[in-house]
């Protein structure tokens, strides 16, 4: 039982990492970036490139952070920059197409079958006992990296000049620009950070499963979008809490022998939460975004 909860928290922390990036773009820029799930998917393949290049395996993490971030900036340029205001839906559809193209290109290069990822056995299989529960180092790695990234993001947004500018743009792009803030630059920053987190989450998932898989964007990644809705659209805290909650819920349904329900849990929870509380768990509370002009 506790082992299942730990497992749930680990899966949930990866959900949260993907959801945070998605919700950040929405909360700050009022944009839905549907290529996000595929940047998450591609993170594992970018990691393969880094590891196969013969480097130290964990260097794949910063490499994927940067590659993911650059992908995000590319998506912003391709799908979002030309569309302002009312054309938001068009932009979202364009990003959806970019994501699907990314799946296809990845499959052209690596094939449709999952590709094995080799990282040292002392990470993937070795571990220790804790309160009668077996903890594998890769689980600690995933928790450690996701928590560190979430804490860093929190500090970035709340304490730095870049974060202040991000919140200013979330508040009102027009008012921010009159105060000398380059809204386009902030937009790029936000897409970079958002997608960098997704890329790292994708690599962490591959560390855990041992495979890079072109399906994960539409399975695992899409659930992160549901989690954003559950947590409250555009709310960072909501993404974290929602991710952990769904991770644990899924693990528990599995534990209680209703494993077949596993995939359904997140979608049913989303429907129920939104039915009862359309603004999501945290929506309407502390928020990165206010009513915009």
């Amino acid at each position, binding site marked *: 039982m506790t082992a299942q909860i730990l497992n749930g928290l680990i899966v949930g922390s990866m959900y949260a990492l993907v959801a945070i990036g998605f919700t950040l773009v929405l909360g700050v820029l009022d944009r839905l970036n549907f290529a996000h799930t595929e940047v998450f998917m591609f993170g594992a393949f970018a990691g393969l490139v880094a590891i196969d290049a013969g480097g130290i395996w964990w260097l794949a993490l910063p490499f994927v952070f940067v590659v993911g971030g650059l992908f995000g900036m590319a998506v912003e340029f391709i799908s979002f920059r030309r569309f302002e205001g009312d054309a938001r839906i068009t932009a979202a559809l364009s990003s959806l197409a970019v994501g699907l193209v990314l799946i296809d290109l990845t499959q052209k290069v690596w094939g449709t079958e999952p590709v094995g990822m080799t990282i040292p056995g002392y990470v993937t299989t070795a571990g220790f006992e804790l309160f009668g529960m077996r903890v594998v180092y890769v689980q600690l790695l995933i928790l450690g990296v996701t928590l560190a990234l979430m804490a860093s993001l929190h500090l970035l947004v709340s304490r730095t*000049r870049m974060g*202040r500018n991000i919140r200013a743009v979330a508040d*009102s792009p*027009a*008012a*921010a620009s*009159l105060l*000398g803030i*380059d809204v386009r630059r902030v937009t790029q920053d936000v897409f970079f950070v958002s997608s960098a987190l997704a890329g790292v989450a994708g690599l962490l998932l591959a560390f855990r499963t041992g495979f890079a898989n072109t399906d994960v964007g539409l399975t695992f990644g899409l659930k992160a979008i549901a989690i954003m809705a559950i947590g409250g659209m555009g709310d960072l805290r909501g993404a974290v809490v929602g991710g952990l909650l769904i991770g644990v819920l899924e693990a528990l349904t599995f534990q209680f022998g209703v494993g077949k329900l596993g995939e359904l849990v997140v979608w049913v929870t989303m429907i129920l939460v939104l039915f009862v509380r359309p603004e999501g768990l945290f929506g309407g509370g502390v928020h990165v975004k206010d009513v915009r002009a």
Partner: protein
Amino acid sequence: MTAPVLETRSLSVAYGPIRALSGVSIRIAEGETVAVVGANGAGKTTLMKALSGLLPAQSGEIAFQGRSIKGRGPHDLARAGMLHVPEGRGTLGTLTVEENLRIAYDVRPARLGYDEATAAVFARFPRLADRRRQRASSMSGGEQQMLALARAIVNPPAMLLVDEPSLGLSPLMVKEAFNVLHEFRDRGTTMLVVEQNVRSALRLADRGYVLRQGEVIASGPAAELLADDQLLNRYLGTRTKEGA
């Protein structure tokens, strides 16, 4: 006359097919306070937005400090010394009072250090000091207007544009807002003020322009416009008895 800090020549601005400004030529000299007055919908806000780069000019010229600024974005102009306090104040409601000031301070290199600059703001507006760690949106409209005007204190601009500082404020706060603007003027701030509150604006200004349906229909020394009862009544719908 000294070279103008800000000048437009035959400026036209449109919202799609709708012309909001036609052939507007105005100039604001160094240290001068200019008022643009006109009824609701005359094009005052449109003019301000075109000047600060929020709206593109359809035709005509805008020069800031002697150089054309057509096509330059608002953040770029803000960094170059333009401060546009927009209609509705443009304070960042989800940020704290202090963060609002910090962003206004950071816009361009300042003469004073940050602590000195904020001390000057808090000396003038003690209410803002009390509320420095609160969200700007938690303050009253009047306090938010003071926060917006405080931008001109925390890092003084080369050109201050103020759009309807009295909008939506209680009579007491309207008075207070104009007091602040009078102080700015006395300090030699180069300033363009747009107001529906015609008399207060003209009493503040050295010169004025009267805008009607997107065109300048009168201009001159503020005192002369203020004395022109016929103009005020016909185009601006102000009552003579309101003034002193």
